[in-house]
């Protein structure tokens, strides 16, 4: 049941994002690009930081 609710919530978010994307993509394509781009830049940068921790741990294990 909990999984189902979570699934539905995520589905809803996905639908909202897609609809927003279609609307914004039409009238405000560059604003939309900013939104997507910023989220991407922040997440990739954050993931890069986390990856460094993994690399360090591996190096410590190896050495």
């Amino acid at each position, binding site marked *: 049941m909990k999984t189902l609710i979570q699934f539905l919530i995520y589905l809803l978010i996905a639908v909202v994002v897609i609809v927003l994307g279609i609307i914004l993509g039409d*009238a*405000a*394509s*560059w*604003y939309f*690009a*900013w939104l997507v*781009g*910023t989220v*991407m*830049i*922040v*997440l*990739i*940068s*954050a993931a*890069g*930081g*986390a*990856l*460094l*921790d993994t*690399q*360090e741990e591996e*190096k410590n294990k190896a050495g």
Partner: protein
Amino acid sequence: MINDTVVELSRWQFAATALYHFLFVPLTLGLSFMLAAMETVYVTTGKKIYRDMTMFWGKLFLINFALGVATGLTMEFEFGTNWSFYSSFVGDIFGAPLAIEGLMAFFMESTFVGLMAFGWQRLSKGQHLIVTYLVALGSNLSALWILVANGFMQDPQGASFNPVTMRMELTNFAALIFSHDAQAKFVHTSIAGYVTAAIFVAGISAWYMLRGKHIELAKRSFRMAALFGVLATAGVITLGDALGFVGGNAQPSKLAAMEAMWQTEPAPAPFNVAAWPSQSEQRNTWALQIPYVLTPLLTHTLTKEVPGIQEIEAQAAQRIKNGIPAVEALKVLSSDPTNAQALAQFKAHEKDLGYGFLVKRYAANQDVSLATDADIAKAAKDTIPEVAAIFWTFRIMVALGLIMLAYFILAVIYTLRNNVQNQRWFLKIAPWMIPVPFLACETGWLVAELGRQPWTVYEMLPTWMSASSHSVGYMVFSLTGFVLLYSVFIAVEMYLMVKFIRQGPDEHPHAPAQPQTGSGGAYAPAGVMMKREEN
């Protein structure tokens, strides 16, 4: 009667205060999102080092932020104090984004920045993370509305002149905020801020690594900044091209000046890599050209003609002649708003009203009906902005952008191999890269705003008419005041920045949860203090 010296001084004052304000804004735009990224890692992995990072860079963020807020106040005042005709002429449209900026963005940014600095002990991890994101979002939304307003000056969409109220009025709000110029400009500027922050963080981190200080913090900061920066730089360049394309369609005179194109050349036209433009002779003394490149670069086609400066000037002369009756009709309508004949005359010439205003400056008694052909020729010449200045500032901006891209690609390569700390030559260069994005941002502003001349609102309102009718003495007084105050400000800010960068992050290896920025401690009630120690 407006004094030319006063207009000149008002322009200098506005440019100086805007460029100065723009020294602090880009870092705020970018660093706020970098803080959010760092804190995201802290909240998801729970590793304390990321909290130290957020706090340390947050402290530098706040030193910069204070000056951004302070100098931003000046900008809000200056439209009214120095550009009063402009303000009442387009306030109906231009004021709205500024007011919405306050409502939607600035309130959010400023309220939450207090909680970001002071709320470390008072908020849960998740709450604090949301607060940090809201600060970042708020500051960038703030930029959004300012650039919507600026987009209107560059390409006035969604408005028309109302002869009853003698000003421009809003006709279509959606056209105003979704103007392509505003959109491309916002994304270009906001992401330029990301690049600025990335170079700032990377440069300082490299400086630490070079000295073997704060290595763990520096390595992680550098990694995040490099990735943040490389993506952002790519984005800035893409959007720069888009802005050139959009702006080129809207403002042919700016485009022609940026490329120093005096004559319309058959497509595909050659591209001037470097040139020495002479405004008086209307030609390039010398030019280094690449054939065929200009047309695809600017129009994204091979066949579309790009109009040259001489052609634009000739068209302007025609439009000035056509605009004169519009101004004459307006004068009648001003005292007799229902005069049908004047209204019909106005309607017939409405689209060239701005050009009619342009010649008012040279006509005897500033009465356009007395304008001679020589006056019209002078006004037509005015429609061409300063070619050499725009051509070169544009090239400097582009060159700096490409240098930053190369720098970040190298940075990413080194950091992903996790051996940037051993590339000493690169670490030595990195701190020297810090001024580069600031310079690029300033030149970008210059290209955009010098290229808009002689208009404050493109083809609608000339700059010379927009200024307030002050005396020279007033202008000297205000300019002196700004120079004195702003010199002290920058000295104090740089001093504190350098001091806190040298001091580096506080490291508490045995008490990792100590607060390092803000004054959360000052607020922590006993219960919270206890909890902090349990951490």
